[in-house]
Structures are given as structure tokens and as C-alpha cells.
């Protein structure tokens, strides 16, 4: 059992995501930075899909009521056990009665805390992920609150020695200016050539509206090609006949502020989508904060698939390090 003394700003239970229900309008939810999520589970010997805590901007204070191994990954938010600093990206031992807390976030936006066995909450449509908009999944369908008691499950499959850690070259680094790679397409024909060019050549600033649903950006107005609107689309030039939105797709309602749709987003609607963030860069997006800058970079599908392979290569390397102890760094 883990007792929540202080929930932090927004701490939710997340796993791999609720996949396969998009057609009824159910977004996947799930950990936003999948790489860090996988790393945390790996370090405590959990199955790939075990549920962890996703911590946003400000960390919680948690009291453990049993001995258990944990691992903390993601953005840099220095953790402490009973007030003593402990490392991230490393298998840690917690004793019954220990209190885990966090310093202010230094880099990134989201941190993942895995406990050996995973967080045990009911499976809703094959997933433990929290989807707060509809109050589904996770701990009672909401972010954690003070006084909540979390059960630990049995989703672990291997013993990982305390002190096992991910080597530095496999730990993501963060920056205040970020390049996010996208594949142009969907309804990009709606933008003027000039606006398409501007979209890729200016720095966009992340607004305070940046959460699990999506990120909104400030920059400059984009323009749509003038046309007589097709039947059923609605009157604004940014409107199309309502269609499905890919996860990571970007739309520009009324041409004013681009919105990137993320894990808890709406699954469809009537705004022209212009491009889609490639799956690997959704992890990067999840670690970007309000007021940081983003530059969008166009890649084609072949480049996107190459990048995906490299990313999987890194995950395999990480798995080898942790599970095979090949080249993994061990502390005394």
C-alpha cells in the first residue's frame, strides 16, 4: 500500500493506454512519455504494460507501507527518500514507513514512478489509465488526492538488483527550444502555401493550455485557401466535414493558434488537421512546458519509420542493459 500524503499538482495512474476503442470516441490516455514509462517499469522488473504514476510539474509526497523496489524516470525532478537525495533512472529500494518526495522540477515536465508489481487499480476496457474527462480508469477516474491509498499489484516478471541503472547515453536530455518532427498531410491542402511555409519557419511558444488533452501554441496567424465550403462542413474556412483526428495531429481553429492533440484528446471533429507529430516525438512533446519554444520540422513517412527504428533500438539497448546486465552500470 502507498499512502498519498500530498498529491502534487497532477498525479495520475497511467499505463500503455486504452487502445482499440478509438472508433467509439475513447482516446487512449496512457503515459505521455512512453520511453520514460517503459524505462521505469523495466527498472523494477515489471511487465511492459504495468501501471505507474505520471507526475506533472510538481511531485507528490508518498508514504510506503511495505518494502518495495521503485524507479523514477522522465523529466528531472530530484527525488528524496526520507529527505535524502536518491538518483533517477535507477532501481531503488524502499522500506515500509519510508516517505518519497520530490524537489522542484529542473527540466522536462513529467516524471514516471514505477513500483515493482505496478499500481493496482481496476482494468477498464483493458487498461488502468486514467481518463479524467469522463472519470474513467486509474484511481476512481481522477488525479490522486491526499489520503488516497494505492494498492500494489503483481505485474512484475523479473528480479532487478537495487542499484541497476540506465546508462547516461540512453537518458533523454531536455532543452528550452525543441524540434518536433511531423508528417505534413491530412487536410494540409487547406493552408495557403505561404502559411505552410511559415508554420515550419517560426518558433511557436507553448501557451498555459498545455496538458494531457493537448498543447496550444502562440505564434502568428495562419491562413486558409479561400473556397466555397463543402456541404456539411460549417462556415469557417478552418472547418471541414467532421472527421477523425490522429493522435498527435495539429489543427488551427480559425487560423489563430495551432493545437496539438495528445493522449486524452477528442478523437474527431470539424477542424482541418494539417500534420501529425511522429510517434517518437510525442514523448518529447510530453516533456515540454508552458512558455518553452517549439519548432516544427517536416519529415516524410520513410524518415519517420527510420526514426522509429532508431528509437526501438534504444529501447532494446535499455532492455539489454537492465535485463541482461550487459554494459549496465551498477552502483556499489
Amino acid at each position, binding site marked *: 500500500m502507498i499512502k498519498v500524503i500530498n498529491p502534487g499538482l497532477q498525479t495520475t495512474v497511467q499505463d500503455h493506454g486504452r487502445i482499440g476503442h*478509438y472508433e467509439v470516441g*475513447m482516446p487512449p490516455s496512457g503515459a505521455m512519455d512512453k520511453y520514460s514509462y517503459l524505462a521505469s517499469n523495466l527498472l523494477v522488473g515489471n511487465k511492459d504494460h504495468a501501471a505507474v504514476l505520471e507526475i506533472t510539474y510538481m511531485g507528490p509526497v508518498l508514504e510506503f507501507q511495505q518494502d518495495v523496489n521503485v524507479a523514477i524516470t522522465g523529466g528531472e525532478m530530484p527525488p528524496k527518500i526520507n529527505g535524502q537525495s536518491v538518483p533517477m533512472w535507477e532501481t531503488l529500494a524502499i522500506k515500509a514507513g519510508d516517505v518519497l518526495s520530490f524537489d522542484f522540477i529542473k527540466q522536462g515536465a513529467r516524471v514516471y514512478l514505477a513500483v515493482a508489481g505496478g499500481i493496482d487499480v481496476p482494468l477498464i476496457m483493458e487498461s488502468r489509465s486514467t481518463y479524467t474527462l469522463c472519470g474513467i480508469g486509474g484511481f476512481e477516474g481522477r488525479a490522486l488526492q491526499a489520503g488516497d491509498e494505492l494498492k500494489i499489484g503483481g505485474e512484475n516478471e523479473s528480479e532487478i538488483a537495487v542499484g541497476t541503472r540506465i546508462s547516461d547515453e540512453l537518458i533523454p536530455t531536455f532543452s528550452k527550444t525543441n524540434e518536433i518532427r511531423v508528417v505534413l*498531410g491530412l487536410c494540409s491542402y487547406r493552408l495557403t502555401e505561404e502559411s505552410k511555409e511559415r508554420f515550419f519557419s517560426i518558433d511557436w511558444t507553448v501557451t498555459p493550455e498545455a496538458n494531457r488533452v493537448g498543447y496550444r501554441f502562440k505564434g502568428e496567424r495562419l491562413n486558409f485557401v479561400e473556397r466555397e465550403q463543402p456541404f456539411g462542413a460549417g462556415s469557417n474556412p478552418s472547418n471541414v466535414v467532421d472527421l477523425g483526428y490522429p493522435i498527435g495531429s495539429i489543427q488551427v481553429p480559425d487560423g489563430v493558434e495551432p493545437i496539438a492533440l495528445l493522449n486524452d484528446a477528442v478523437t474527431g471533429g470539424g477542424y482541418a488537421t494539417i500534420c*501529425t507529430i511522429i510517434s517518437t516525438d510525442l514523448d518529447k512533446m510530453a516533456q515540454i512546458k508552458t512558455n518553452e519554444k517549439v519548432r516544427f520540422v517536416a519529415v516524410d513517412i520513410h524518415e*519517420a519509420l527510420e526514426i522509429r527504428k532508431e528509437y526501438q533500438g534504444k529501447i532494446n539497448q535499455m532492455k539489454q542493459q537492465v535485463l541482461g546486465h550487459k554494459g549496465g552500470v551498477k552502483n556499489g
Partner: protein
Amino acid sequence: MARYEYGGDEFIFVELSEAMSLETNFQAMAITKTLREGKLPGILDICPSNASYMIRFNPDIIHPDELISKLKELDQEVSLENFEITARAVDVPILFEDPWTHEALMRFRDRHQDPTATDLEYVARTNGFQSKEELIKAITDSPYLVSMIGFVPGLPWCYQMVPNEQQIEAPKYVRPRTYTPERAFGFGGAFAVIYPVQGAGGYQLFGTAAAPIFEKEQRLHDFKESMTFPRQGDVFRYRSISMEEYEEIRSEVENGDFRYLTKEITFKPQDVLENPKAFSDSVLRRLYA
């Protein structure tokens, strides 16, 4: 001509037409149904939408270009003539001009095309109806095809089964509302919708549905198998009800006794496309028989 587009490395988006029509929607339905039956490895989600459809796939199992070739083949193979839809005709009771959506729409007048009228008055006028009562009659006279589900879990986009010249069209709000009550009945573009949960929204607000279309607790009979009620291909008849009937239905919902009036129907797209009026009448006769 259909457009095939990459949605990053995990989605393919296919736009069959830029404009909405019953025929295009049936085509999207037929292609996605055939694809679903084919059980192609690596497919994660198949999402039919109004005049388009979208696939989520695992590119480690199926290359996007291989998937696109497959979809192009399907587009050629699928024929609406042999396509049969088995669905439910459903009676959906709506309280028009209810106090809850009225309160919401009045609160956001500054975001509307016409701050001096209600949404119903505005859309009646822009569609050439003499009164809002005439608009309500047009909305409730003929049933709707559930042409897409999404936005949030269970929201049905509904397209009326009437000839094109009788279609009602409404703009969306100039700027979306930040609040829409649960079960609000709205209209935007050429689509009627019910908002399953409270939230943002940009459709014109006409009323409130008495019964839920999303129930996460899954207490009611109609929600035993799924938290969401509408299915693509369903035929919804929106029926105008009184406050008295509304309150009766609400108490049935509270008690857990409410069940939608539904009838199973089987039809071919041609039945609808050739004579929408005759099709609508036969559905209504069967529903209320």
C-alpha cells in the same frame, strides 16, 4: 477521388469526399466493415467517419504503403449494391428549448453569430423556416443515420435521411463555448449530435436528451455491453417531448429502469438513396409498430 494521407507513422487518413452525403458515408461504412472482417494483422483501430475514415496501425507489422494499397483495392472492390446494414432504429426523446441548454446558450451570446436570438430562432431563420416550431418539426419528422462516433466517448454525429435540398445546415459558434451541459442536443454543419458529457462545444444548442448516451457505471440495460450507446449505422429518430415526459424518463433513468425503444432493422444503402422518404416512413412504422 479518395485521398490517402499519412497521419504520422501510426495512422492512415482516407478522405472519400470533401462534402458530406449519405452515399459517401455508406461507402466509408462498407470499406471499414470489409476491412474489419478481413482481420488484417497490425490493425489497431478502424474508425469510420462522416465522409472519410481513419486507421491506426502498427507499422512494425504492416508498412503504411502496403496498407494504403490494400485500402485502394478495397475501394475498388466494395460495392454498395451488395452491402447490407443491420442496425437499430432508436426512439430518442428530446426536450426542445429546455432550461439547461437555454441557460448555457444565453451565457455565451458574445460567441454567437446572432447575440439577439436563441440558437433555435437563428437556425430556423437561416434555413428559411417561418418559425422555430417549423424547424423542430423538420428535425423530428425524418430519422437520422448515425454517421460517425467520436469527439468524446459515445457522441453520435447524425445525418438526416432526407433529400439534399431538405438538409438543415447550421454554422458552428463563432468561438466555441467552454461549457455545454451533459446530454445537450446540438446542431452544427449538417449534423445533429448529443453531447454525452459536460464540456466544451461549438454546435448550436436546441434541447436536451432525456436519456443518457454514455453511462460509465453501466447500470442501465442498454449499457451492459458498452459504456457508449450509439453505433455507426444506427437510425435515430429524435422525438420532441414535453417537460412531463422528460421528468418521467429522468426518474426511470434514476431508478435504473429506462430502456431505449429500439427495433432491429436491415437495409441496403440503395433503399435510402433511391427514396429517402419511403425509407424513413418504413423505419418509423416499424419502430412504433
